């Protein structure tokens, strides 16, 4: 390969959106490889794959789901702080549909049955999932309505649902943490088909999102609206509808994430489920290179960003860092990553690659 061809490819790699997130991930995994013995080992049990690496991906699946929806919202120049609360609402709705007896005071045969029979549920699974996702979409539509039609600033508009949503989630279950006994539901978050089932959900959502944005004009419109919504409006784009779609889709993803998360702990915990997770989701998107001001986006890069965040967490645990220190260290690492993206660093990298090119 000639010098110039090499630097040409090198340039393409650097300028690709995936470069930095993959670099960040690579650094963290490298760190693990060196310091933690057996980090990359795999085990096969019952035909399924297990291992630390798999754990990272599995634990990251809720954030990955959120990141897909959040990417679109941020790309339109907005933000959605309410995804955690939407998760809680979704979980509450789902749990209630499977076990509404908790609200009553009648120890009917059903309650006893619930506690003992893992295949008993008030509503069939498909109804549970369908209704939950519809509720989640409605939440997303509410956000979209506030942002696109009433023109409330996204941070504020979604702040409202974020605050009120927790209350609503608790209202639905009357403050009770509903236990979920239904096994098939637990499969969503805990099931395994060679790989964790939740990863398949992530892949599925990614494909849907990709088709929606890259195989239709919607992706272009989202980017256009995020960069300059006035120009987009003047060009005939229905910028309101585009934003509405983005928020509704984000709500949908949050609903799905809520199902996965609550299935993981087999409870609907309206108080704690999804708390602070919106921050992780936003961070994933930022690490993935989408600017918070909106515009160009890359779903894949956001997914990688989500994995990076989880990798940091898991690596810390594997490394023996006690839980309480995790938050503090995470913040430092995150700042470091953000600085990597800052203009200063970009300029340095560009200068570096420009120098490489200058060499004859």
């Amino acid at each position, binding site marked *: 390969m000639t010098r110039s061809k090499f630097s040409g490819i090198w340039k393409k790699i650097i300028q690709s959106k995936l470069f930095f997130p993959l670099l960040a991930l690579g650094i963290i995994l490298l760190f693990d490889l060196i310091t933690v013995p057996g980090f990359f080992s795999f085990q096969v049990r019952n035909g399924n794959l297990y291992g630390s690496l798999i754990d990272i991906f599995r634990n990251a699946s809720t954030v990955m789901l959120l990141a897909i929806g959040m990417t679109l919202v941020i790309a339109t120049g907005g933000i959605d702080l309410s995804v955690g609360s939407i998760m809680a609402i979704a979980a509450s709705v789902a749990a209630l549909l499977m076990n509404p007896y908790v609200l009553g005071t*009648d120890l009917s045969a059903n309650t006893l049955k619930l506690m003992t029979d893992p295949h008993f549920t008030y509503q069939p699974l498909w109804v549970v999932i369908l209704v939950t996702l519809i509720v989640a979409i409605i939440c997303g539509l509410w956000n979209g309505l506030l942002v696109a039609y009433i023109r409330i*600033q996204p941070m504020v508009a979604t702040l409202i649902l974020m605050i*009120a949503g927790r209350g609503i989630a608790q209202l639905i279950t009357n403050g009770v943490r509903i236990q979920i006994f239904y096994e098939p539901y637990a499969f969503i978050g805990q099931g395994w088909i060679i790989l964790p089932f939740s990863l398949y959900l992530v892949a599925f959502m990614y494909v849907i999102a990709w088709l929606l944005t890259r195989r239709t004009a919607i992706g272009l419109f989202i980017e256009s609206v995020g960069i300059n919504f006035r120009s987009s409006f003047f060009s005939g784009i229905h910028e309101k509808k585009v934003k509405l779609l983005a928020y509704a889709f984000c709500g949908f993803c949050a609903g799905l994430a809520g199902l996965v998360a609550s299935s993981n702990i087999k409870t609907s915990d309206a108080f704690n489920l999804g708390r602070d997770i919106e921050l992780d989701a936003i961070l994933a998107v930022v690490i993935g290179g989408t600017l918070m001001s909106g515009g160009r986006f890359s779903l894949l890069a956001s997914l990688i960003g989500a994995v990076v965040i989880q990798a940091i967490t898991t690596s810390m645990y594997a490394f023996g860092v006690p839980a309480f220190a995790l938050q503090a260290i995470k913040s430092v690492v995150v700042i470091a990553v953000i600085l990597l993206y800052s203009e200063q660093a970009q300029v340095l990298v560009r200068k570096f690659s420009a120098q490489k090119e200058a060499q004859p």
Partner: protein
Amino acid sequence: MMRKIGAFLSHNQKFVPLASTAALAFVAYGIGMVLYPGMRDPQVFLNIFRSNTSILISAVGMTFVIISGGIDLSVAGVWALTSVAAAALLRAGWNPWVVIPLMLLMGMALGAAMGSFITYLKVQPFIATLAGLWFARGMCFFISDDAIAIDNWAWRLLGQTRILIPGLAELAWWQGTNPPFITISVVVAFLVFIVAIYMAHYTRFGRTIYAIGGYNGANEQSARLMGLPVDRTKVLIYTFNGFCSALAGITLSLFVMSGHGFYAQGWELEVIAAVVIGGTMLTGGEGYVFGTLFGVLVLGITQVLIQFNGELSSWWSRIVTGGLTFIFIGIQSILLARKARRKQAKETKIPGAVLRRRMLVGGSAFVAVILVAILTANLVPGTDQPVGAERSAGCELQPYRQEQAASLKEDGAVVVYERNGGPGCIDELYAVYPDGRIIGDNGTSKAEKQVTPEEVDTLLAGISNYGWFTDEMYDTWHTPCGVCYGYYLTVVHDGQEKTVKGVDGGTDAPADYWQVISVVKGIIPAFPATAQ
């Protein structure tokens, strides 16, 4: 006078959000006083300030941050960190008068660090302060995993000294009731508040803050070109907010006499909500510290109303906070849109009279909506408790019948359940036996029910499944509200025996406790005569 107010408002449109908040606060409190005689006690009003000093102090600092167009998510984390750090230092014997300034310096340092990241490294405020939040909370746990109680004379002095209000005090003595009081923290909060107003309107620093914010960063650009010290000011804004957060953390620790990393989770949003409800626009450039005071008041009054109502569960307060934020933002957006449209129309002026009428109609519609909301909230599914029942004339809790419970256990009962309190002021004791017999005794009559032994077994297995015999299930207690019950539940199963007590209406009890209680409730018989 209404005319004058109307004219003033239409001339100075910028005061409308502030005026609406103030109006809302007054109206809400007024309605409360009408509905709940207990609220007429001036101490209740003063208590709003006592329980919200931290929010007030923090919101004042946050107001500056938001006016400059930024945001600070780290505040509640710094509260917690300050409380833990102070508690730890005090426990280690440090001089409290050294601890306080040290904590303030710590807050300022953190604020300056975040401010520098935002200003010089161009990190987005959202992200920089988010990292700050994580860092602060994380640091809490470096210091201590559990809560640290504070047992320091200075802290007790500062936290519990009652400052009487001249005038009201005399009135109270004359009436023979307790004189209303506030604490030193409240005074400090007001001092901070006044200093902030001075800063905002009488210093170059304050005016520069207004110049920086708004218009999507265009103002910041302009300010720079005008030669204003933008960078220095931005860092100072976050430093000041760090100072306020630390101070708020100190007042928090004074209030609860302890420090813990878990305190104030999520409260940064309440602070932001207070600022927004107080009329400051999140886009920056506009807003008044004075309004923030009313924002905090509104949130505080909401809490009080919900408490007095007693019917609404505590999470309604979150919903109301969200709803209020929504309404106020809505107003802001509408006003903004109207301003933008008028800008396009350039010179066309809407005649003052028309404007005034519109303002009046809009304002009254708004107040009407709030009134309706509050009234509906009061009509929400209630017990037969008459509206206006005073909290103080609550139920005199009857002593728990522990000996009776013990003897029932000797007798062979596997489940002993006692429920005490509530609107009807009852005291019921139940026992479940392995052969399926269930008896109940409420002091006046008895009840009996028979279920199958298998059902009892399932019940016990289920309760055990909920983790009854693990560490997840523990005692909690606080003074119950007027309509709340207290519970005692003893379960015997598989050679183990455990009693756990709990009380309605709090969030401290383990969640599964309520699952178990509800299951047990379902199985017990009803009493014949007294229908609750």
